[in-house]
């Protein structure tokens, strides 16, 4: 019997994003060099929300894009071909600090693919990683610079992010036990 618990509600998600935004601002003194790149699907609305908060902190708009990583995955012949989401990079990444944004950090393989995919668009000065949830179980030497919540999980558990932007009734992060 699958059991579902809410690990972050709408208020907690917004609070976590506000804190991450302030940490990004603290780490990067020159806000004009920062661009946000969300990884589909969950990372894209999160990057947009972070962009809004950072725009208030820095008093200028923060460029936001989305980067589909499915063509760079290392498991393409091991499961059904993934649905490819739009990649929109309406800025030059050369010399910029790119903050990659994803919803859940797990094996790290998505981030490895994202680093590769980002390479095709140029050579950023720095790449940082922001995630809403770090659930552990890394397969690769990858860690996040900014974390909303560390949630120890079992391998058979599943974390899902629901946001109003994606059609959910309310923002929440759910942990499902199989």
């Amino acid at each position, binding site marked *: 019997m699958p059991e579902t618990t809410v690990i972050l509600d709408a208020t907690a998600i917004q609070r976590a994003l506000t804190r991450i935004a302030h940490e990004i601002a603290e780490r990067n003194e020159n806000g004009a060099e920062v661009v946000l790149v969300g*990884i589909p*699907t*969950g990372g894209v609305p999160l990057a947009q929300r972070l962009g809004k908060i950072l725009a208030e902190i820095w008093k200028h708009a923060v460029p936001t894009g989305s980067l*589909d990583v*499915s*063509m*760079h*995955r290392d*498991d*393409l*012949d*091991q*499961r*059904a*071909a*993934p*649905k*490819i*989401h*739009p*990649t929109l990079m309406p800025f030059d990444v050369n010399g910029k600090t790119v903050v990659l944004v*994803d*919803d*859940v*950090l*797990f*094996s790290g393989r*998505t*981030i490895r693919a994202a680093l*590769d*995919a980002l*390479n*095709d*668009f*140029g050579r950023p000065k720095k790449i940082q990683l922001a995630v809403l949830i770090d*659930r552990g179980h890394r397969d690769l030497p990858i860690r996040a610079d900014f974390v909303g919540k560390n949630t120890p999980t079992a391998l058979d558990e*599943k*974390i*899902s992010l629901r946001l109003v932007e994606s059609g959910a009734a309310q923002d929440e992060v759910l942990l499902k036990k199989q």
Partner: protein
Amino acid sequence: MSWTRKHLLDIESLTADEIMIVLDTARAFKAVGQRAIKKVPALRGKTVVNLFVEPSTRTRISFELAEQRLSADIINFSTEASSFKKGETLKDTALNLQALNADFIVIRHSASGAPHFLSRVLEAHVINAGDGAHEHPTQALLDTFTVRERKGKIAGLNVTILGDILYSRVARSNIWALTKLGAKVTLCGPSTLVPKTFEQMGCRVTHDVDEAIRDADIINLLRIQHERQRKTMFPSINEYTQLFGLNKARLARTKPDALVMHPGPINRGVEIDSEIADCDRSLILEQVTNGLAVRMAVLFLLNGGKGPQGVAGN
């Protein structure tokens, strides 16, 4: 739903949903073609054999570039320089290629059903790049991709295919794809090349070109395939041009937003006036660009293994 097929042999056996998966995936690959770095590592380490037992330039080049842009290793095999000349059978050739651990075989053959045959004897993924007068699935996929991109939809459109239908695998694959996606297909050409039997595929057949193109949203012109005709099917090329060639006067009597397509190679002054081939209502070169994206999408989808589609970070 997700893509589960191992081979791309024809359009006839695909569902409308499967066709849409290819078209949606192709859209992403078209965007890759517009980047500074146009290559992605999706097929890194995979070997693709282009087995072209019948001459082809544009399809072969399009497949080759698609494979290169996906980082695959490529072997090109053509009739001119091959063991077919020494009497080897298709099956033996294919088994030899498989023994080199080829992961994909892209085959063009003058015999209808050759790709289906290979798919039964090989472990590799088989892609039909045109088999006789049977099917040319990637051409139909790139044509429907182009139509959808320019018109925003397929369902409800009037598509007229004009020319040599009888010998055309492009026509057959297009008819399957367009009717599955809800377009209304009209076929037109000399009665010897457009027999009424095509009505069984769900199309309208007419031999009056002005009537055929009057309400068309898309006019897809096909070349007269001299190489497939065993006897003369119409009195002369000149007469064909007079009766069925698309010229300025004819195009002026169509809907102002009707667009012209042609799978190439075009015969200027025969089935299409030079001026029309180069005008802004011609999609001929866009078809070539889109063909690359569609072939990348097909290779990418077939490369996927079994199992669930979900590859999110979790």
